[in-house]
């Protein structure tokens, strides 16, 4: 993973994810861009707090899937938000802010991962999560059998996801954890929509195979 950029930051947003109805994040981002353009940076920063509050949980979920470490995920998300604000004037209102932000977030996560690897620190493997308490698997009213089954599935899928190639893992994470459409993933990663679909198809096929083997 480290040493190879999965996301082409310089690639244009090929698949324009034009929003029929701009998302709340896109609306706030456009507002902030206007404030910065008028030199009202204090108000822009204030408004940016609302944007952070809107997106930070989702951002942490994506970053954590990459980094498997809460501190690193925290730093990556902070870096991403700071970059967004610094470059807010480059934001195009005709495109989805969420997709633009996802691209910046993924790159920030990859940067953090590379820095961590350079420091030769151990990357927590997904298998380390074997100690995950069953209670964290959300099945509040489920029976013990169902909870155990959910945990078993979690472990199987986690192992299989960890073994996916980088691009497949990226596409899978954005698709399944961040619930992005292939078009949004394509825009966020710089891949074509067809490439995203191929990666997603292969990832799901491998996961299906892994689950079948262990069943």
């Amino acid at each position, binding site marked *: 993973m480290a040493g190879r950029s999965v996301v082409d930051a310089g690639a244009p947003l090929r698949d324009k994810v034009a929003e029929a109805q701009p998302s709340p994040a896109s609306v706030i981002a456009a507002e902030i861009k206007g404030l910065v353009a008028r030199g009202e*940076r204090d108000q822009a*920063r204030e408004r*940016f*707090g609302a944007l*952070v*509050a809107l997106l*930070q*949980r989702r951002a*942490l*979920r994506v970053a*954590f*899937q990459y980094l498997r470490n*809460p501190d690193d*995920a*925290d730093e990556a*998300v*902070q870096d991403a*938000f*700071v970059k967004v*604000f*610094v470059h807010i004037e480059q934001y195009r209102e005709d495109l989805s802010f969420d997709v633009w932000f996802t691209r910046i977030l993924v790159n920030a996560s990859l940067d953090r991962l590379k820095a961590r690897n350079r420091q030769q620190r151990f990357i927590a493997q997904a298998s380390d*999560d074997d100690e*995950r308490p069953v209670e*964290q*698997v*959300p099945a509040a009213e489920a029976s013990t059998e169902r909870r155990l089954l*959910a945990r078993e*599935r*979690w472990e*199987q*899928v*986690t192992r299989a*996801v960890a073994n996916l190639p980088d691009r497949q893992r990226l596409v899978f994470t954005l*698709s*399944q*954890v961040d*619930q992005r*459409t*292939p078009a949004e993933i394509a825009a966020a990663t710089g891949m074509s929509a067809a490439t995203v*679909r191929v990666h*997603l*198809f292969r990832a*799901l096929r491998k*996961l*299906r195979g892994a*689950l079948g083997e262990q*069943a």
Partner: protein
Amino acid sequence: MNRRDEPDPTLADALDAYRAAAWAEVDAHFDERALEAQRQRILQKLAQAGQPARVLAFPGSASPLRPAAGISRRWISAAAAAGLLVGLVTGQLLHVMPGDAWVHRVAPRAAQSVSAGRMTLIPAVATTDADNALLDAIDVAVTTRGASDLRAFDDMTFAYEPR
């Protein structure tokens, strides 16, 4: 996702469980307080990003350095000039009078003052033939018998020196 990407029910269940657990895991790490703290850190970074670099005072004293008062500065200047003048005059005098003449003039005077004060001071500057003879005798003693006696200690000391 098109039909080709559509997972089968078993896989779909597993993926749902995976997503839900992944979200729960992150939520367990980042509660509302952690999210608020993160927001504050981001806003602090943004506030600092717009400010020019701060220059630290050196030396790090609480009060800034003040220029010296006018009188003190004048005294310091005068003392420096006087010291320079005295040094130049002294240097010229030493140059005009050769070294031996200077020694022969100073040494008897020192001897007189010592005898007058009944003190046994050895004139530091004057070196007579008797002194030279004494120094030669010491030198010979050190380089012959004494040196051989000390050499054993030297060798032993070297042997115990830390590496």
